[in-house]
């Protein structure tokens, strides 16, 4: 409507101008100059009004655009745009305040600036902004903690410019609040995870360090401080050369450099001197860490193994002393034993003159106990040898049947003496295998002697056969058998089951343990099956193909 009115007026004044000009010329023609001057004045006036209409239109258009722009910007803005009057009461607020404070613009307008702070007029951040307002200057980026309608604290950054009247007096402020709560949360989260990280590395009891590509310490934990006796602040930014004697530093530097260049983790034992001059043996593990930007770091963990190393040294010494002691004792026992044995045998066999039956009986007792003592010494020595890892295997190609026959001949008379029969059941297609001849004989002797010991009647059978990639040897007896609960004690050192009265048969509890070690040394298997009252089968299996 307004547009039409304006258009009508525009046309009216245009017509008026044209008419005025025509009337002017008309009166000029009629020589009525007075009228002519009046009408020319009116025509110019009309023209002036007409022109002013056109300019006003242009100006209005600009104003409209600027208003529109402002409206649209404030509408789409996620930030809260507001205006305060001279009394710091809200004059205007955009819709974004809904998202920010959960209030509508109409709730805001008319309220005081302080009304939207947690602690109202006492709020520190409100006071700080108020101070900025008082200066009458524009400001920006000031952090505040405002509250929503649900009393939830949020963080915004405020920017504002003063509104001035024509006299330059500040009559209010226009400003923007942008929500930085998410940012603030992220920052809090970061602080939290940073605290978490430091708490963890400071809880680790072993020194932890991080070095940058220039070999400078960039991170250290509390244990590192405690261990080296230097506070972090003194070491951070320094390198090995600042802390250790040159000859040590060179070594450390080279090792670190290798980790940097190869990326291969470095594990080693080093000796270092702490701030008190004490030498420690440390075990260090260093790994390469590369961050998102490609910067390389070494992350290292140190373990002080000084005490452990000392303990190990002492243990090693003790073990060596034990080995030497056992070896010495057994050697020193063998010599007198040899003298006794030979002497007794000479007399027993009548080489030193006639012996009565009674004398012979007691000499027999001496002989049996000498044998027992010899076995004991041998077993203890063998046990000590494999325990010290000194059992040496001399592997040669043999047929198991030959070895069994050898043992058969040495034991058959003893077995027959006890009224038992010794049977052989040997497969004749068995391959030649790598064995330590003497040690396999020892195992067979041990198996068969055990069988003799615990078998009163019946037979002992030695069976050899092939099963898969193994040659298996069974020693089967018809003896008293072994209780199930005792089976697993058999291969344990110094465990003895079933006491034997006859000293000649008494063992050391080491026989089967040694047998197991011997078979293990052949990469074989050893096992036992038994039924009480029916008998026992001791078996070992030796691999056909030599294993590495």
């Amino acid at each position: 409507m307004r547009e039409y009115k304006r258009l009508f007026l525009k046309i009216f004044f245009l017509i008026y101008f044209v008419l005025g000009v025509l009337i002017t010329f008309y009166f000029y023609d009629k020589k009525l100059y007075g009228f002519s001057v009046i009408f020319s004045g009116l025509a110019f006036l009309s023209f002036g009004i007409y022109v002013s209409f056109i300019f006003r239109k242009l100006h209005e258009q600009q104003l409209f655009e600027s208003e529109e722009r402002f409206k649209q910007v404030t509408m789409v803005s996620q930030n809260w745009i507001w205006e305060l009057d001279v009394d710091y009461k809200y004059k205007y607020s955009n819709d974004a305040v809904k998202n920010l404070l959960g209030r509508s613009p109409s709730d805001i307008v008319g309220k005081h600036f302080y009304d939207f702070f947690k602690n109202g007029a006492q709020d520190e951040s409100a006071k700080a902004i108020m101070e900025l307002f008082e200066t009458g200057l524009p400001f920006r980026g000031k952090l505040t903690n405002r509250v929503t309608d649900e009393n939830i604290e949020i963080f915004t950054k405020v920017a504002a410019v003063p509104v001035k009247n024509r006299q330059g007096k500040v009559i209010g402020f226009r400003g923007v609040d942008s929500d930085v709560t998410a940012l603030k949360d992220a920052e809090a989260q970061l602080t939290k995870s940073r605290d978490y990280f430091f708490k963890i590395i400071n809880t680790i009891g072993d020194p932890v360090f991080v070095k940058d590509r220039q070999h400078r310490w960039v991170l250290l934990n509390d244990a590192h401080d405690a261990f080296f006796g230097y506070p972090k602040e003194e070491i951070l930014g320094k390198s090995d050369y600042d802390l250790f004697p040159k000859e040590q530093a060179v070594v450390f530097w080279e090792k670190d450099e290798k980790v940097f260049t190869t990326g291969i983790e470095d594990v080693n034992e080093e000796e270092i001197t702490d701030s008190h001059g004490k030498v420690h043996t440390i075990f260090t593990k260093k790994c390469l860490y590369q961050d998102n930007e490609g910067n390389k770091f070494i992350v290292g963990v140190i373990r002080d193994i000084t005490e452990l190393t000392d303990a190990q040294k002492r243990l090693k010494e003790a073990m060596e002393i034990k080995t030497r002691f056992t070896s010495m004792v057994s050697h020193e026992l063998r010599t007198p034993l040899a003298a006794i044995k030979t002497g007794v045998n000479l007399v027993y066999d009548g080489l030193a003159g006639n012996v009565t039956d009674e004398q012979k009986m007691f000499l027999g007792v001496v002989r049996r106990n000498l044998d027992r003592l010899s076995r004991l010494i041998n077993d203890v020595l063998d046990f000590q040898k494999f325990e010290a890892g000194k059992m040496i295997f001399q592997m040669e190609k043999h047929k198991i049947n030959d070895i069994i026959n050898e043992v058969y001949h040495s034991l058959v008379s003893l077995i027959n003496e006890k009224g038992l029969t010794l049977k052989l059941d040997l497969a004749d297609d068995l391959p030649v295998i790598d064995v330590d001849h003497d040690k396999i004989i020892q195992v067979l002797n041990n198996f068969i002697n055990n069988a003799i010991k615990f078998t009163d009647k019946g037979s002992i059978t030695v069976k050899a056969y092939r099963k898969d990639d193994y040659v298996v040897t069974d020693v089967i007896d018809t003896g008293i058998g072994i209780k199930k609960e005792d089976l697993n004690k058999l291969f344990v050192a110094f465990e003895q089951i079933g006491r034997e009265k006859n000293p000649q048969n008494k063992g050391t509890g080491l026989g089967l343990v040694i047998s197991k070690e011997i078979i293990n040394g052949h990469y074989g298997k050893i096992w036992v099956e038994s039924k009480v009252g029916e008998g026992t089968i001791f078996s070992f299996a030796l691999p056909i193909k030599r294993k590495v």
Partner: protein
Amino acid sequence: MERRILIVEDEEDILVEISFILTKKGYSVIKCSDGEQALVLVKQEKPDMIILDLFLPKMSGIDVSRAVKMDDELKNIPVLILTASVDNIAEKAEIAMADDYLIKPFEYLQLLDKITALIKE
């Protein structure tokens, strides 16, 4: 002809026992209880066989045996090592270049068997 055997043993009791047995079995025995003297006696007497302990005063059994075996004139004399030391005995016997070994305590019948076998060779 009576075979002569040199026994080198620093344990007096064992020396007595072995010489008793060997004498009984018809061997002639030369007794000796240290390494250096043993070597002198080997050169001087040229026995048919040597029974040698390993741990000896002055010169070890291994050195005595090697000296004998390195000597062209003596190398054919059989050497039997008799020792209470069981650690790596086979290896030690090989280093000593000995012909055989026997571990103490031993069965004297076994000793006699080994002597018979070595002298025959």
